[in-house]
Structure formats: C-alpha cells, structure tokens
C-alpha cells in the first residue's frame, strides 16, 4: 500500500456507503454488517500506519499528491505526521466501535449507516488533508451527515440541536474560508499547500492582519472545540444525538478544533500566535491559555449542576478540552505533548462515557441522575465499567488522562503559573461532579423501578473493553504514543517560538 494507504482509508468508507445505498432498505442485518465491514479496513490500515510510521521524520509521511484543479493550484494532497497520526487512529477505532453501538438503530437503517460512513470519510479526510482547499471540503463534508444523523435519529429536541450545530459550525468555517482565500492570494506563488503556506507567507502579511486572520481562524476552530463562549451548541447536540453520534462528536469532532489550531494557526501564522494582543499578553495567552482555563472551570461548574447524565458528560467534555487549549498555549515540550495526548485520551474516555450513558438510556429510557440509585447492586458489571470510566475522566493516576493532564499542567506552570493553579484546582471540581453522580446513581438504596434492569450485554462490552484497555495501557506506559507525536510537535513548538523570537516577546516571559 504505502503511498495510497491514506486515500484508501478515506475512500473505503465512501465505497461502503455506495454499497449500502444499493442494498435493499429492509435488509437491516446486511446493512449493519456492511457498515462494520467498511470500517474494518481503515482500522487495520491505521494499525499498519502505527507500525510503519517513522516518528523521527517531522515531514508528512505516506504522502499522496496530484494536481486536482491546476488552474487554481489546488492539489489532492494527503499525508500524516506526528500531529495527525493519533487522531487518524482514534477516528478509525471509534468509527469501528460506534458501528456496533449503532446496532440498536431501527429507523431508516440504510440512511443511518450510509451517512455514518460518509461522516467517517469526512473525518479521516480532515485529519490527513494537507491542501487547504481539500481540508475545507472535508471539514464541511462532515456537517451534512452530522446534521442528518442528529436531526433524524436524535432525541426529542433533535431538530433544534441539529440546526444549531449546523449553523454554529458553518459560521466558523466561513470565516475560515475568507482566511483561506486571503492566504491563497497573499502567497507567492499562489498556493493552498498547508505545509508550504507558513514559509510562503512569512513576512508577506503585516502582523496586525496576521492577528486578525489568526482570530478569524480561531473562531472557526473554537466553535468546534468548543471554547467558551462558542460552546452553547454542544450540550444540545450531544444530548440529542444518538449514542454513537455523541461518541463521534465528543471523541473526534471536538479534536478537530484543537487540531486545526495546531496545524493551521500555529503552522501557517506562527508569528501571530505569540504576537502581543492585549494588556501586554500574547494572542495565545488570551485566546488559548486564558480561555482554556475558563473552559476547564466553566465546564466543570456546569457539569456539577446537571441532572441529565448525558449533559453532565457533555459539559465535562468542555472542561477537558480546556486542558488541551491550556497545554498547547504553553509552548513547552511538556505542554504541547500533553495537549495532543489529552486529545487522544479524551477521545477514548469520553467515548466510553457516552457509550455507557447510551447503555443505561437504552434500558431505562431516561438519563436523570436522580432517577436511579443503587445500580451497583443491580448491574454490577455495568457499574464496574462506569466506575472505571469515571475514574479515568477524573484523571486518576494509573489511567491515561492523568498523564496528559499532568503534562499539561507541568508545561503550563512554566509559563502561566497563575492560570495553572486555577486549572489544577478545577480537578477537584471534576472529581466532585463525577463522584457525586456516581454516588447518586450507583450507590445507596436501589430504585425499585429498576430492580429488573438488564446487565450490560456482550455487544456493548465489546465496544467498551478496547477503549478501557487503551486507557489503562496509556496510563501505565504512555511512551509509545509520546514517541510518535513528540518530534513533530517539538518542531512545531520551535517554529512558533522562532517566528516570534525577534524581538523576544515579553508576553511569554515568565511572570
């Protein structure tokens, strides 16, 4: 495979979609297994990629590139590096697992699985695209299936949630479109090449315009992360979406925001990243570190107030994504490594959480925390897995999130001690809302209504166990994944700092 493995990963799900569309709509079983079958090759290929990826090379690997629209210098250009490899693996894995989590879908099965596969194409494409036009196409390609998946198969307020998600994300991406066009025409020669644009544009654009573009791009990505105050679509979308789609939303789509900032804001506008912004501090300080810390605290506080378990998990995502923002704004090796590791870890842990919420919702048809109680004695296995996921989300040592959050806080401490103290104290809030929920739902007097609640079944366990294994493994031994991503991230880190170097920015000098 070699040079076209990434294209195969992108387009095999699309081919699967076409096959599914040709199947008779009543053949539910065939359609479901066809959906699974289409997600297996990307998963296997992602494992193959892990095997053959050379971590020491910071340039993109497995590159495939040919002219697409020569008149406009648009190329079909894909490749992965240390920034994207973990995301690609995460996408392939979660899509595969979510196919199983979607077996409970009964309405318009054909449409659901077809759209799901289209979504996978869009997600993998976004992470591997290195041409800005191609990136944008894949980025937007995800919106359509997502809209329908939430809107048709979602909960009671699905229409509202779906359109809100759609409009918010589109709003962000059109600003990105303006920036893309600006880059294209400012670069000489005109180019959409994400790997070259940074060099082509250096010193071509005045710094204040760069900052403006940085902010325009940031708004697009911040909506996706979602960073406060652009987060309001998230609780609605996550709560109304069907389980598997919530998993995809929280596990993958949110990462696209931070991935985009790393790849595009850092990669193309390094000078603007550390440019002075306001009050003597840099752009990165205000928009990433400060907003990230706010995200951590705000998400945790909101989570604490939730009655609906799914909403609680949704707000916890906002909180956890704050660590990613804080870490990547620190521009220290630990910070940026921790941030990207946190992206992966949050992907696995939050996927577990949403899957577990789905399990209980399928049985009880509601998610009110106070509506349950003493589940531990009724469904001990389910409770065990839930406990594991909750502790993972809390960042308990020995589980993966601990490593990444610790790295983030360590890295951030060197730059922003004040913010780091706030962020670190928020861990208490996190523990608070998770433990409180655990106590209310699983401990105490069993609710008589649910005495006959069925235990978690084999299919559901099958979706959870691989994730749990990864969480545990990375909690004990994170080195393999750090090795994969570290060289590329350190280089990116250096690039940004070099671009900002003369004159030395006082904004990041230790306060």
């Amino acid at each position: 495979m070699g040079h076209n493995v990434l294209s195969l990963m992108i387009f095999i799900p699309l081919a699967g979609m076409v096959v599914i569309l040709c199947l008779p709509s009543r053949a539910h079983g065939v359609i479901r297994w066809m959906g699974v079958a289409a997600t297996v090759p990307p998963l296997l290929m992602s494992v193959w990629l892990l095997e053959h990826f050379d971590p020491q090379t910071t340039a993109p690997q497995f590159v495939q590139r040919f002219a697409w629209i020569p008149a406009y210098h648009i190329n079909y250009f894909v490749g992965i590096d240390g920034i994207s490899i973990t995301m690609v693996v995460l996408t392939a894995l979660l899509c595969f697992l979510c196919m199983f989590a979607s077996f409970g879908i009964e309405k318009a099965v054909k449409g659901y699985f077809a759209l799901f596969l289209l979504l996978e194409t869009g997600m993998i494409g976004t992470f591997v695209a290195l041409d800005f036009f191609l990136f944008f196409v894949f980025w937007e390609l995800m919106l359509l299936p997502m809209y329908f998946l939430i809107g048709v198969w979602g909960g009671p307020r699905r229409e509202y949630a779906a359109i809100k998600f759609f409009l918010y994300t589109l709003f962000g991406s059109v600003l990105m479109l303006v920036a893309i066009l600006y880059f294209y025409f400012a670069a000489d020669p005109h180019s959409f090449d994400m790997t070259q644009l940074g060099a082509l544009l250096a010193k071509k654009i005045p710094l204040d315009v760069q900052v403006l573009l940085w902010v325009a791009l940031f708004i697009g990505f911040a909506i996706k992360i979602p960073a406060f105050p652009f987060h309001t679509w998230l609780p609605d979308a996550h709560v109304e979406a069907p389980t598997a789609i919530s998993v995809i939303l929280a596990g993958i789509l949110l990462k696209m925001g931070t991935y985009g900032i790393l790849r595009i804001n850092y990669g193309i506008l390094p000078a603007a990243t550390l440019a002075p912004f306001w009050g003597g501090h840099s752009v990165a300080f205000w928009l990433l570190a400060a907003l990230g810390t706010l995200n951590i605290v705000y998400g945790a506080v909101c989570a604490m107030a939730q009655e609906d378990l799914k909403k609680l998990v949704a707000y916890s995502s906002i909180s956890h994504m704050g660590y990613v923002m804080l870490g990547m704004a620190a521009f220290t090796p630990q910070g940026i490594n921790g941030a990207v590791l946190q992206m992966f870890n949050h992907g696995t842990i939050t996927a577990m959480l949403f899957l577990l919420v789905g399990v209980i919702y399928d049985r009880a048809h509601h998610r009110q925390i106070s509506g349950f109680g003493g589940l531990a004695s009724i469904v001990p296995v389910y409770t065990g897995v839930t406990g594991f996921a909750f502790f993972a989300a809390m960042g308990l040592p020995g589980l993966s999130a601990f490593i990444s959050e610790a790295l983030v806080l360590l890295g951030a401490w060197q730059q922003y001690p004040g913010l780091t103290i706030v962020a670190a104290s928020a861990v208490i809030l996190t523990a608070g809302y998770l433990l409180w929920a655990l106590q209310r739902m699983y401990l105490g007097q069993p609710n008589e209504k649910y005495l006959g609640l069925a235990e978690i079944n084999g299919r559901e366990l099958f979706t959870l166990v691989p994730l749990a294994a990864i969480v545990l493994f990375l909690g004990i031994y994170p080195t393999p994944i750090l090795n994969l991503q570290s060289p590329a991230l350190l280089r990116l880190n250096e690039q940004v700092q070099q671009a900002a170097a003369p004159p030395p920015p006082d904004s990041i000098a230790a306060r």
Partner: protein
Amino acid sequence: MDATQSLRYFGPELVLTAAIMAVLALDLGLTARGIERSRWPGIVALAGAAAAIGSAVRLLRVPAREWLFGRMLVFDGFSVYFKVLLGLALLAAVWMSLGSREVRGQPNEGEYFTLLLSSGLAMLLMAAAANLLMAYLSLEFASLTSYVLTGFLRHNRRSAEAALKYLIYGGVASGAMIYGMSWIFGLTGSMDYAGIAAGIAQLDDPSRGAFFLALVLVLAGFGYKVASVPFHMWAPDVYTGAPIPVTAFLAVGSKAAGFAMLLRFFHFGVGAAGPVGAVTRVPLLQLGTLLCAATMTLGNLAALSQQNMKRLLAYSSIAHAGYALLGFVVFADAGVQAVLFYLTVYYIMNLGAFWVVMLIANATGHEDLPSYRGLAWRGGALPALALAIFLFSLAGLPPLAGFVGKFYVFGAGVERGLIALVVVGVLNSVVSLYYYVRVVKTMFLDEPRAEDAPVHFALNDLAAVGLLSAATLVLGIRFDWLLARVETARRIFAG
C-alpha cells in the same frame, strides 16, 4: 461587418426565429383542424431550442471577435458562452413546461411556446448587444414576453396580479433606463459602446458628474433585470404567480441575460477607456459595493420567513444575484470570469430546485412548505434527496457545485481586496443555510402526519432532476474544465 456577412455569426438567433415561426404556424394549423390540445408545439419548441444550442456550440470554436450588423451586436467568446447558457435555460424551460401540469392543462399552449422561444431569442440578443438601441430593444423584448408568460395562467388571480406588477415595475425601470441612455447619448454623441467609451474620454468634469447620474439610471434597468436591491420588489410576486417553468426561466435565464448586459456595458461601454473609476471619477465601486451587500443581505433576510417554496426561491435568487454582483464589483477580468462561473453553477442548482418544486406541485398540487412535510418518508425520497442536494448547493456547502461558485466569486473579491464585502457574503451564506435547511428539515426530519397523502413520482419524470443533481455533484469535484471554458469567455470584446 455588414448585415449579410454577420448572418454567419447569427446562427442561434436565426434558428430560434425559425422555430418561433414554426411553432406559430403549427399552432395555426392545429387550430384550423380543430385540434385543441397537442404535444407538437412543445416538441417543436424543444427541437428549436436544441438546434439553437447546437448552433451556439458550433460558434464556441470560432475565435473571431467582431462587430455584427454595423455596430449593433458583438460576436465574442463572452456572448457565445451566454448564448449556450441561455439556450440551455430555454431548453430546460421548454422541457419543464412539457411536464408541468399548470402549463399542459392550458388551452393555448401554442402561444405559450411561441412566447417562451421569443423570450429566449430576446435574451440571446441581450447577451450580444453592444449598442444602446439594441440593448434597450432586446431588454424590452425580453420583458414584454416575460409579462405575458407570467400572466399565462389566465384563471389564476395570483398569476394575473403578478403579471401586472411585473409590467408596472418593468415600465418604471425601463423608463429610468432609457432616460439614462438618452443622457449618455447626449453626452458622448454615440449609441454603440465603442463610441461611448471614446466619448467618455473627452468629457470634462461637470459632464462626468452628469454621466454618473446617467449610469445610475441605466443601472436601474439592469438591476431590475437581475433582481438586485432596490429593484427587486417585483421578483417575489412574479416568481410566486408565474407558472413554475416560467419562474425557473426568469430566475435562471433572465438573470443571466441581465448580467451579460450589465457586464458588457460596464466593461466595454464604460470601462474600455480605462478603469471605470478613473474614467468617470465617480464612486461606482462604492455604489456597486452597496448594491451588492444590500442585495445579498435583504434577499437572505427576507427568505428566512417564507412559507411558499417559490417565494423562498425568489428571495434566494435575489440573494444569489448579490453574490454574482460581487464578481461584477471586482471590475476586472477575474470578476467577469467568476460571474460566468457562478451563473453557470447557479443555472444548474437553481433550475434543479425549481424542477423538483414543480414535480412536487404536480404530485401534491401545493407549493407551500407544509405540504413538503415528511416527503422523504412517504414516497418522495428521491425528489427530496435531489432537492436537498440543490438547496445545500445553493447554500454553498462543499463538495457541491454551489460551493465552488461561491469560492470563486469570493476569491475574486479577496484578490481585489474587497475583504469586508466578502465577509458580508460569507456571513450571508450562513444565514441562507438556515432557510435552505428548513426545507430539508421539513422533508426529512418531520414525520408525515395522517393528512399527508403518500405521493408517487414516475422515474422518467425524475430523469432531468437526476441529471442536474449529478451535475451539481460532479461540478463540485471536477470543475477545471469549466474554469478553462470561462477563462476563454471572460475577455469581453472591446472595440
């Protein structure tokens, strides 16, 4: 070039004129034999439109750039491109009419097709006119036929009201335009665009001020044709009242012809003597920017609350005129190219949308949004899917053709440095998504209720829609060939 020589480059118009006469004669013959309803006028019209396209396509390969008929018309790649596009619009309108329940039920189909073909002929002339006389004459010709076509549903009050409104607005706009034209003639002493361009160069400062006022007046006529704010008020009523094929033809063909005229007038008649602003020393760029921003914004905002599909698409087409105007405001070849590209893409997706609306109106008898409820779940999955594709394309989502069109127009704007206008444009496409999605939501997300009867669509009725949706998808991914086409067509003949 004199009249006889010019005929070689006049193929599409001649073919259409012959087709008009043929349809008219055929209709007379049928009436004489007492045959009231016949498919034949429509079929002859279809053949005529197809032959005109064939003739125009042959001209695509002719590299000549000439004056025709003295200095009345111009033959260049730009006009031929528009002739092909307008021919296709005409063909589609005839094809739609053949399948439209509104049109087929009427007794005077022969007159209908005669008028439709003449409307097409007038638009072809609009695309080539490079003389104030021809510009005015062809525009009036197109308007006159449009009024009658709009009022064609004689027993429908809405149709008659729409025709009357159209007539009154059209009269005011063309009155303003011809007044402006008389000034231009008076100031420059010339009717053909080359003479006007030469005359502008001689103008002193006070005359330039007067000339600007004349331009504004002329702009009213063009703005009316492309349905740009503030000359757009007729569009919603006319689009709602006219039979759907006519609406589609007005939305696609009339607009394209209006843009052809607008671009030629400002790039050749006014702009040929130098950059427009420098020649006239007037705030034309600012005026254009204002019109463009207002057209996009008002069109989209008004569309938000519409319940009738034709009305919604009417406001949406006003908004799209705004996007295309962005290419006009660029006042450079890149902008012309973007407009050409945009209009082509717009042709495909907007026509497709109207076509589906017509099929649904044929099946349900309604055009209002509630009658679309749960359409996908009661037998209309394919038309619903096609309409969704067209609407998402109109909203400008990749990988659909509409995205490429907007990308291209906005790109031309950014290249010119009109960042603020482009930002207004992209924000408008977010607004537009809301009302397009509302339709999609009604079709897919809403459950059909008991009173919503199942609908049935014959596969061969869907053929054209399938073709157009395939084109929307393909053009979103492979558009380099069209780029190459518009690249050669963008150079407007300039004397």
